[in-house]
């Protein structure tokens, strides 16, 4: 009797485990499921078999699978995809890779039987990996909408990728606190004046109750602000001086300026330089939100975080250029550019390619599409019909351009990969902690650039 009971239990357990197996395998056929567990948002039925819910779907042959790069826009993309499916009957699947895992997710998704038809690369270096998978977009309607050829990534005559959103970054200023310290943003016109004001605030910080800069955190969640975005300035000025737009061997002509601005950040901060190695992106933002610091280096994508909680209004905030002490910088604007390029998967079926191109065109030309992208997601589009920016920092970018200031181009997509950035961050962190010197930073900037370019070959 006991034995029978035992075998019954064992058999039951086996059935259960089989059941578990099959239920795990079933959804694996859906394009959206990945082992890396990205946010899955099948906005539309995975197969065209369910147009019963949607109005007539006359020629919905292909389908769209978009691997989205921006986690902050996941819900909005899902809503937009649903609107498109309702309108045309074409199924659109949106999958968003978790923050910082885009390359990994893309790699595993591309190997599947139903790969993304629409994906992102971050610039010319990112394109190197995926060039074989990028459809030539030069004849597409979408390309006709692009406002400038500068927003296309080309390989010879082929248009491999197109920018889909323009962003800007600089030093975000709390104007109210700056006024409390007795200054206004008009007083800051170059590195000298920024330095004088920051050092004055530091000298009076106990009396004022706030510091000049929010912490320049060197934790992985924050160090990209310095090893990528701040590093863009010496790269940009060197490219401008040499009249080039990329190089395999950087000289580091402007690294002394890079040191100036970085020293200013770490010595006039909310905390001691030695503590910066553990400070995160959230720490830095929260210091700014809690009015503990006047300046905060970040970009237009932070706008929603800053005004979202009702702590700030547009009147409190402004973005100023990152001055590094280069001659003539009074005329410098904020850094504007993109690292979000759309690609269409050339290895997808013809129906899917057509469906994807139609979807992209609809996104940047139709009223619903433009509303979704410009208002709900808050993007500034490089396409002809793009709506006016709702984002304060992007509006400021326009105003500065109109006032004749030269925006700083985003040259950091020419950085030779993540390893270069990581090594630079390591050297900067050691410098802030006092365990390394500036020579280490220079060496990883200049020598690292050459060796990483060599490693790509």
């Amino acid at each position, binding site marked *: 009797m006991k034995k029978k009971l035992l075998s019954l239990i064992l058999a039951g357990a086996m059935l259960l485990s*089989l059941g578990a197996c099959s239920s795990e395998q079933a959804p694996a056929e859906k394009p959206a499921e990945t082992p890396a567990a990205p946010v899955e948002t099948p906005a539309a039925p995975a197969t065209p078999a369910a147009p019963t819910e949607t109005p007539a779907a006359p020629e919905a042959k292909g389908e769209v699978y978009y691997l989205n790069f921006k986690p902050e826009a996941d819900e909005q993309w899902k809503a937009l995809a649903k609107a498109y499916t309702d309108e045309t009957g074409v199924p659109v699947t949106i999958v968003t890779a978790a923050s910082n895992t885009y390359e990994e997710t893309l790699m595993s998704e591309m190997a599947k039987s139903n790969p993304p038809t629409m994906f992102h690369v971050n610039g010319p270096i*990112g394109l190197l990996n995926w060039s*074989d998978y990028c459809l030539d977009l030069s004849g597409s309607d979408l390309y006709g909408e692009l406002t400038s050829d500068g927003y296309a990534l080309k390989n010879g005559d082929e248009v491999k990728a197109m920018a889909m959103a323009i962003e800007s970054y600089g030093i975000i200023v709390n104007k109210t606190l700056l006024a409390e310290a007795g200054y206004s943003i008009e007083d800051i016109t170059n590195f000298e004046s920024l330095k004088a004001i920051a050092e004055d605030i530091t000298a009076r910080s106990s009396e004022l109750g706030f510091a000049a800069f929010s912490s320049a955190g060197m934790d992985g969640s924050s160090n990209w602000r310095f090893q990528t975005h701040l590093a863009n300035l010496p790269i940009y000025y060197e490219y401008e001086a040499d009249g080039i737009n990329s190089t395999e061997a950087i000289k580091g002509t402007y690294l002394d300026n890079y040191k100036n601005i970085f020293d200013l950040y770490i010595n006039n901060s909310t905390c001691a330089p030695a*503590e910066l190695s*553990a400070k995160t992106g959230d720490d830095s933002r929260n210091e700014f939100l809690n009015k503990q610091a006047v300046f905060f280096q970040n970009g237009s994508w932070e706008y929603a975080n800053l005004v979202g909680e009702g702590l700030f209004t547009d009147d409190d905030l402004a973005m100023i250029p990152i001055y590094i002490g280069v001659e003539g910088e009074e005329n410098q604007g904020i850094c504007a550019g993109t690292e979000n390029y759309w690609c269409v998967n050339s290895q997808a079926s013809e129906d899917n390619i057509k469906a994807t191109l139609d979807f992209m065109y609809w996104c940047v030309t139709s009223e619903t599409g433009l509303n979704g992208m410009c208002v709900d997601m808050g993007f500034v589009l490089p396409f002809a019909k793009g709506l006016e920016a709702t984002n304060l920092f992007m509006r400021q970018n326009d105003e500065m351009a109109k006032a004749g200031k030269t925006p700083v181009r985003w040259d950091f997509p020419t950085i030779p*990969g*993540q390893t270069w950035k990581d090594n630079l961050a390591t050297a900067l962190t050691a410098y802030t902690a006092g*365990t390394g010197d500036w020579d280490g930073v220079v060496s990883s900037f200049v020598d690292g650039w050459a060796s990483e370019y060599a490693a790509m070959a």
Partner: protein
Amino acid sequence: MEKAIKKYWPIFVLPTLAAFSIGFIYPFLQGLYLSFCKFITIDNATWNGIKNYLYAFTDEAFLHSFFFSAGFTIVSTLLINVIAFAIALALTRNIKGTNLFRSVYFLPNLIGGIVLGYIWQILINCALALLEKPLLAVNPTFGFWGLIILMCWQQIGYMMIIYIAGLQSIPSDYLEAARIDGANEWQILTKVKIPNVMPSITICLFLSVTNGFKLFDQNLALTAGEPGHMTEGLALNIYDTFYGRVGPQWKGYGQAKAVIFCVLVIVISLIQLRATRSKEVQQ
């Protein structure tokens, strides 16, 4: 019953065999093939010969990560097992609250490695800041010892449960006989208890040696290899090789390292299994 098993064994073996083949054998063979290739996606690989292995064997960072992993494994295996065994001895003596202690010691094991890594990063950084020492991101020595502390904290409870089970399965007449013969506590421990829990020791050593080499999420969360790959174990080095640089050759290099890593772990754990198995006694 036995007849039925003889007749129907394929049906019973099949599900597991299928799962093992799909989940292990096939990916392993494919990985072996890919380690000789350049690729971006795994179904689009081009042959690259043994260049990947040549690179892997000459990469200094990989060598460094091997010594880091080896050192880490030795220290963590010793500490985890000695402490776990000591606690297991203490908790098989019918002290009051034994069950409570067992549960509490086991609890850290239920928290995932990434979460533990971040929690300990905050704790250790706080301690280092108070001591005015460089924080974890610039301090390889504390990075190493931080990892040891973290792994001990996580693993000791688990190994303790295995040792307790082993200690409880020693027949009480062995211990009684030893006491009647006049053996003292130390003699009972070394001559009766340890030989009888050798199967548990084998299991625990196997688990902690392989865990030590395979260390990944704790490593990623606590130090991420900083400063400059100084606290990077083998698994993290493979991950960095695979994703850190642009170009199809780097995927191949990472894959070759992964195959070397796999063979290495198998060989080391087989040696360890053989060494401890030979000390096991029949009850």
